[in-house]
């Protein structure tokens, strides 16, 4: 057993990482689906979208072949509507609420229709928005992820000059660096960022990290307001013996490497264990398999009823051939020569509900041992607690405390997205960015 790269041919990589949700090939195909939509009033899909995209309207606009209008409707509510059409867990959002579900029929393919309009707009660079003339106000945004970009776009449209400070070399945040490549390609992420920037009035300074290259105090002194969309970044540690062994990696950096280095550069084991059952765990497990791992086993300390990922996501993992072990929690990683050899797990049972309302796992004392050469940790991410505390922002375990418009404990400093909510969907961050922009406009008296 070994951890190696170059496991597959270029063709195999391309096939394994091809688009999992293929787009409509042409207008006719999109029209067939658009015409299925019954154009609900006060539509459940719209109410189930965190950014409140007017779904019936944009679908009707596809049906009338007003594709520009359709894209404008989507982007007006969600400037990352293109990316969201690929990465949103729509089965628990818009599509999950579609009234067709209540007729025991397949819901409208809202995401696919949304992709149809937005991808066209991005590819063809349709100038759907114009910004008001510059009003001289300047706002700094930290983080070019979904929250930051969304906030910047709203502000720029109102005539504010925005500068975004981004610690990575590319924009898009977790959209670019943290999501399975078969859902959204790095090229699309770049195009999407460029499309957002095409409005004008937004400058991104790359490789600028808060607390390292820039400080909050500096930004406060140079700008009229500051928006923090710094996300979460640190993988939660397992705190078990053997965690330091060669072969134990965290899912965030594993996916980051896939996204930023090229598939054949990323090393993967023969037999891989993935700890956790959230969306990131699924993305890590399926991509490990698609990189050529012979066996991938996902471990979760609770049961299917409590899993954080959706059934659709679980199905992707299972169809990829990942094994699932419920009610198992990692106890110790055993190794030889500094390398992972085995993962010992405690078998759990479900006890009383915890703070989240889910029944908490209780150790039964029994264990199982898996022969593995790689362990991927996907047990959640931690907020930047130290960074937040250093800047004296009121917080809860590192999550910045704000009101509904992103107002923090420091006047003129706003925040939103994962750094506030602890890590939710892209679409939640986009809405947080809009809310923050509203707060900033209020603060600036615009």
């Amino acid at each position, binding site marked *: 057993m070994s951890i190696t790269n170059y496991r597959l041919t270029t063709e195999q990589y391309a096939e394994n990482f091809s688009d999992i949700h293929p787009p409509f090939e042409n207008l006719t195909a999109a029209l067939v689906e658009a*015409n299925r939509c019954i*154009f*609900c*009033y*006060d*539509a*459940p899909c719209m*109410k189930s979208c965190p950014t409140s995209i007017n779904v019936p309207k944009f679908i009707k606009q596809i049906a009338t072949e007003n594709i520009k209008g359709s894209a404008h409707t989507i982007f007006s509510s969600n400037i990352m509507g293109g990316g969201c059409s690929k990465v949103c867990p729509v089965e628990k959002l818009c599509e999950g*609420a579609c009234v067709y579900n209540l007729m025991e029929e397949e819901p409208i393919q809202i995401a696919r229709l949304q992709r149809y309009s937005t991808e066209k707009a991005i590819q063809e660079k349709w100038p759907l928005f114009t910004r008001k003339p510059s009003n001289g106000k300047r706002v700094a945004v930290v983080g070019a992820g979904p929250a930051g970009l969304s906030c910047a776009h709203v502000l720029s449209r109102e005539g504010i000059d925005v500068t975004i400070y981004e610690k990575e070399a590319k924009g898009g945040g977790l959209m670019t660096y943290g999501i399975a490549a078969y859902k959204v390609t790095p090229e699309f992420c770049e195009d999407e960022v460029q499309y957002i920037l095409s409005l004008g009035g937004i400058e991104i300074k790359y490789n600028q990290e808060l607390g390292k290259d820039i400080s909050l105090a500096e930004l406060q002194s140079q700008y009229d307001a500051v928006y923090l969309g710094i996300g979460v970044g640190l993988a939660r540690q397992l705190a078990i013996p053997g965690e330091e062994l060669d072969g134990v990696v965290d899912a965030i950096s594993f996916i980051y490497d896939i996204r930023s280095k090229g598939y054949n550069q990323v090393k993967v084991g023969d037999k891989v264990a993935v700890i956790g059952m959230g969306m990131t765990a699924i993305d890590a497990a399926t991509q490990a398999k698609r990189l050529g791992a012979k066996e991938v086993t996902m471990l979760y300390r609770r049961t299917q009823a409590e899993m954080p990922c959706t059934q659709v996501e679980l199905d992707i993992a299972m169809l990829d051939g990942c094994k699932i072990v419920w009610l198992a929690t990692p106890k110790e990683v055993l190794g030889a020569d500094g390398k992972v050899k085995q993962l010992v797990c405690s078998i759990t049972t479900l006890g009383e509900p915890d703070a989240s309302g889910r029944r908490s796992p209780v150790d039964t004392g029994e264990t199982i041992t898996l022969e593995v050469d790689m362990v991927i940790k996907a047990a959640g991410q931690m907020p930047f607690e130290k960074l937040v505390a250093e800047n004296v922002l009121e917080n809860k375990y590192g999550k910045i405390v704000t009101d509904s418009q992103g107002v923090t404990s420091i006047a003129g400093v706003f925040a939103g997205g994962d750094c506030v909510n602890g890590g939710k969907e892209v679409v939640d961050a986009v809405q947080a960015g809009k809310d923050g922009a509203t707060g900033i406009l209020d603060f600036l008296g615009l």
Partner: protein
Amino acid sequence: MADISSDFLGIKSPNPFWLASAPPTDKKLNVLRAFEAGWGGVVWKTLGSQVKNVSSRYSAVDYHGSRVMGFNNIELISDRPLDINLREIREVLKEFPDRAMIVSLMADNDRESWHELIKKVEDTGAHGLELNFGCPHGMTERGMGAAVGQDPEIARMVVEWVMEVATIPVITKLTPNVHSVVPTGLASVLGGTNALSLINTIQSVTGVDLDSFVPNPNVGGKSAFGGYCGPAVKPIALKFLTTIAQNEITRRVPISGIGGVSTWKDAVEFMLLGASNVQVCTAAMKHGFRIVEDMIEGLNYWMDDKGFKKLDDFIGKSVPTMSNWEDLDINYHIVANINQDKCVHCGLCYIACEDTSHQSIALDYGKPYNKYTIKEEECVGCNLCKLVCPVDNCITMVEQRKAPEYMNWKDFQRLGMPLNDH
């Protein structure tokens, strides 16, 4: 199984489904294919004056993703030489003696031309003639087609010419491009026609191309008014048919129903409103002749379900229920009811009623699903909510009479009853 064989003026066909005079019946090859598919009869595409056709000829109206809801053509009558048509009619009759063979005619506007044409056609052994008084384009400019059908006196004169020589049944086909088909229908019956058929196509412009700005169909950068047909015209055809079926004189002759018949259900509706058989064109042009299979089977099962043994058991059955507005019962009142178990919370009933009708549906906000209930005291029983509801039998209309006795508008006025106060 029920007996669906048809006897129209003594012309027998195994079923009441004929193909109308149109491109599907313009030559032997098509007609043989139609008969092989099971059609009961054809009306051969109109013969007569020599014409030349243009390209393109058709255009359509699509609706909500469905193609050819309405169809339009600027094709004229047969542009093939008469003798070829006559020879082919003879040949088809020999191969399919059990099917109805009617020949549509439109001669030049003089007695001799009609007489000559009729004799030649009768010589083929055809079972009947249909007079084309309806074609709305191309021929009208030459005083033919709809130009005849729009003038009862001219129509009657031509029918009389025809009846002077015709020895086989004559059907007169009426144009809908009039305020009422009754005057020409009446004139034709008085002129001696043995039967009527309706409707021919309705003059139309199906649309304008938003890139070239030329209306459809485009003939080298220009267009012309065409004849509209297909599912979109069915309600208009049914109305005209009913007026012929109601009139004391026109109803004495059999009627062949035409206009958007696409399914056995459409055919049954035409027959319930007085048609003895139906003619089909657009549906066949869209899907081919195979559609007749389901028409035959569907009609059969429906008749069995309803206990009808033969077509005459239900032809015209709905005509007496078509009343005048002023005779309708004002005390009859219905209110909508929403079955909450079936409701999918789409809100279509609510927004239709709230914006455009009588504000009779209450909305209780929910996320993501609102609850909708009827405000019975506000509901006027208009049916709108039920019509827009996407779920079968979710909204039903429940009878809640205003009073037990029948009262129409005339009684209402006579008694000085109060009008609405809002």
